[in-house]
């Protein structure tokens, strides 16, 4: 059956995120002084054919580890809907 999965890719905590920093600075400029930090990531919606949720999750996790995320600098989380 057709299933949908979401993949969240974020930079590892040890990796400095220049884009997140710029966004945080912009928020400060806008008056959001309560913002402590911003980390920018990527979000994917994957539609795929799979027998069940477990199979879909395993399959999408494999895709995330191979292509969607670079394990050197990023980590990922998979959610099957």
């Amino acid at each position: 059956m057709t299933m949908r999965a979401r993949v969240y890719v974020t930079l590892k905590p040890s990796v400095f995120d220049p884009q997140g920093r710029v966004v945080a600075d912009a928020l400060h400029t806008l008056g959001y002084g309560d913002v402590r930090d911003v980390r920018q990531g990527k979000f994917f919606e994957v539609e795929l054919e799979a027998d069940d949720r477990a199979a879909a999750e395993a399959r999408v996790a494999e895709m995330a580890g191979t292509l969607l995320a670079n394990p050197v600098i990023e980590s990922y989380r998979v959610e099957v809907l």
Partner: protein
Amino acid sequence: MKFAVIVFPGSNSDYDAFHAASAVVGEQASLVWHKDTSLGGADAVILPGGFAHGDYLRTGAIARFSPIMAAVSAFAERGGPVLGICNGFQVLLEAGLLPGAMVRNRRIKFVSRIVPVRVEVTDTPFTSACSEGQILHLPIAHGEGNYFAEPEVVETLERERRVVFRYVGVDGQPSEAGNPNGSVHNIAGICNDARNVVGLMPHPERASEPGMGSADGRVVLESAVRAFSERVAAGRASA
């Protein structure tokens, strides 16, 4: 000697590298399309600069799965000299042929200027005609050249003398002011543990003739020619 320059959709320094290898250094060169599966008997491979596949997803992330990359990996595995310039360096990182990764430049700006780069080691096929500590003035042009690796990886690179090029200041010393993109330890280029695969963000091929503002980069491809001649001579001696 024969250079193969890989052409990805979005490469833009492929002809610069081709020109430097053929017209400037005077060797044979061929352009190899990324969907090809053979390097055509090349003696050295260049992955050129540009924006392969539009830098979609991550720089080099799609290009590493191009059909030609299996041949490039096998060539590297056999000890063949492979040079990744700028986007080509990013492809080598994504392909796992070199350790680490690139993130956005520290100040988010695309940096395009000539910078001083120090040659740290001469025992690679792309620095063999340099002298250790030699300063090369080379253009950089990138938005994601901020080299990152975990501290233990950086420590290994330093210990094994695998930092090949380092950004330096006007005094020739690595400094914060001389670091154009935030790279850890001012790293501009590294090699693999077998030392035959070299990646660097600066563009030696764009600085290989006096009219280009600097001809310092010429020595990188001349090194490859020298290393090739030495390999051939060693082969004859042992035959």
